[in-house]
């Protein structure tokens, strides 16, 4: 996965709370067996009218936000289904960071596996960013993973918390399975012992 250090990019405001993964990538696109190519289906039912035309009222269809790589959204972003397709679609569309007051747990994990940085800021800070992204033309934000900050050139500056190990993996773009296999000897020993617990056998 692509390492993430610092990104300065256009920010798009999605001023809704509880955006669920069914909206991010509707079910009809989960039948594919590929890992790529989901960007065109991102927010499909919001981006397109029932007849398939682009809905001009949806923020990502506004030419002002074309090329945005940072999404600012309301609380509990990406709740619901565990579909990693939501992270794949955001990434494939071009988003590399999402800023919101809170994120749902499973998506939080999925985003990390796909090099997407999630920055949790306060409700007030997010409200400011949503407002700025709506009212200021070509509103750029800088997300620094190294410094754990979100800044703009209007004087906004905020810090966000991130688990140090998650930060390390995102900075380096590391493969998780490879990291786990550093513990293979411990795993082998654990498993031999654990297999003797008959009440924990699957079959």
């Amino acid at each position: 996965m692509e390492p993430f250090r610092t990104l300065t990019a256009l920010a798009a405001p999605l001023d809704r709370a509880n955006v669920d993964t069914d909206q991010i990538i509707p079910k009809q696109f989960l039948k594919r067996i590929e890992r790529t190519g989901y960007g065109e289906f991102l927010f499909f039912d919001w981006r397109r009218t029932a007849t398939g035309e682009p809905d001009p009222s949806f923020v990502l269809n506004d030419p002002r936000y074309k090329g945005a790589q940072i999404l600012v959204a309301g609380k509990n972003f990406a709740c619901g289904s565990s579909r990693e397709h939501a992270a794949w679609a955001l990434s494939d569309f071009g988003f590399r960071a999402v800023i919101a007051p809170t994120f749902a747990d499973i998506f939080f994990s999925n985003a990390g596996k796909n090099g997407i940085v999630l920055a949790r800021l306060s409700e007030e800070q997010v409200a400011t960013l949503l407002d700025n992204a709506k009212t200021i033309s070509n509103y750029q934000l800088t997300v620094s993973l190294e410094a754990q900050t979100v800044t703009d050139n209007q004087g906004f500056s905020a810090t966000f918390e991130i688990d140090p190990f998650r930060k390390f993996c995102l900075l380096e773009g590391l493969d998780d399975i490879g990291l786990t296999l550093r513990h293979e000897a411990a795993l082998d020993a654990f498993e031999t012992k654990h297999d003797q617990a008959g009440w924990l056998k699957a079959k």
Partner: protein
Amino acid sequence: MSSEPRTLFEKVWEQHVVASPEGEPTLLYIDLQLLHEVTSPQAFEGLRLAGRKVRRPDRCIATVDHNVPTTKEGRLNIVDQIAATQIATLRQNCAEFGIELYDVDSPSQGIVHIIGPELGLTKPGMTIVCGDSHTSTHGAFGALAFGIGTSEVEHVLATQTLPQSKPKTFRIAVEGKLPRGVTAKDIILAIIGQIGTDGATGCVVEYAGSAIRALSIEGRMTVCNMSIEAGARAGLIAPDEKTFAYLKGRRFAPQGAAWDEAVREWSKLPSDAGAKFDRELVIDAATLVPYVSWGTSPGMVAPITSKVPDPASAPTEQERTGLERALEYMGLKAGTPLDTVAIDRVFIGSCTNGRIEDLRAAARIADGYKVSTKVSAMVVPGSQAVKEQAETEGLDRIFRAAGFEWREPGCSMCLGMNPDILSPGERCASTSNRNFEGRQGRGGRTHLVSPEMAAAAAIAGHFVDIRNWEVKG
């Protein structure tokens, strides 16, 4: 091991710690991974690309549930070629990596969260994962069970472990006797309505209290199933005699001396007296009623006796906009009594309410009645075993006589990945778990209810208070 009193969650967690590297998440051993066609193809492909094997095929099981049509003809020849390819891909992957698959023609096929327990794969004290957020269902047995993404599916296939940060613990006690007509579904809808769809984010919930203890194992599964709708990482319930009685004799349950040993071990799992939780909530069961969801998020629920809420009463601007948007999507006016809302469709099924007790409860309401001429209603058993049991008991005849369609098992209209979907504007009383926009079909309007409430709504043509229903059967 500490000598401090421990919670059920802590006991399961500690039993599965492979490694606790400094400054990194804990590496947790996974006892069982359940696989299905939708969230696994990219995981197997990842293994192939990296030249990796499945570490423990004996700790994996697969079935087809999300995509499969629910008509006999539809299953034999799946018209949707993308869905057919996804199912064929699961077949190839299971054959290549040596994983047992309960295919569409297997007597063990069904929704992954229904077949796990009924086969006795799900057992107390286990760690269980699946690329599906409703994996929390298995927590009803005192297992730590949670949904994961596809990268994590691949990780578990390759290593039988997952790096996990330790979640917080949240005890929700439902105390007292559940009033008549109030079900497990109503308990969980009430909890989500009270704490919100992010009310348990970052937490593992332990459901406790006399009302939870009094639930059957299937009722407990319904409660744990929707933990994710409150944002919880997982939901679990301490195993007890009911749990053991449910498991005894099932295909993959321990037998003979191994059974006795298992019961001894499982009996040690319940939270110790004095164990500390990060958060606690107590709910008085006597205050619970039958609920109906009215909006586009599972937290938007209200008692059947109440009215569609007024966005003007929302405390903040953002909430008001959210409510207005939800009502507009749902085609509802503020102040409308919920028991006057007319419906077009009824769906009884899903991993939330597709088990035999759910079908018995719905059939008891439907027996001797006819589905409204304005309503199209379907019953989709959660598994082949549920279907067979229901047919043995004659439930299918009751449903058919009343005018319900009787279908083949699968996830069906809970998420509409197969041909079972709502048309734009159609309103559905559904026993499923999510009322998100478009969940059951673009423009479709979903109202979450218990199986009894869904059956009664099918007959009346609108929502009714099940407590006033005259049972004929």
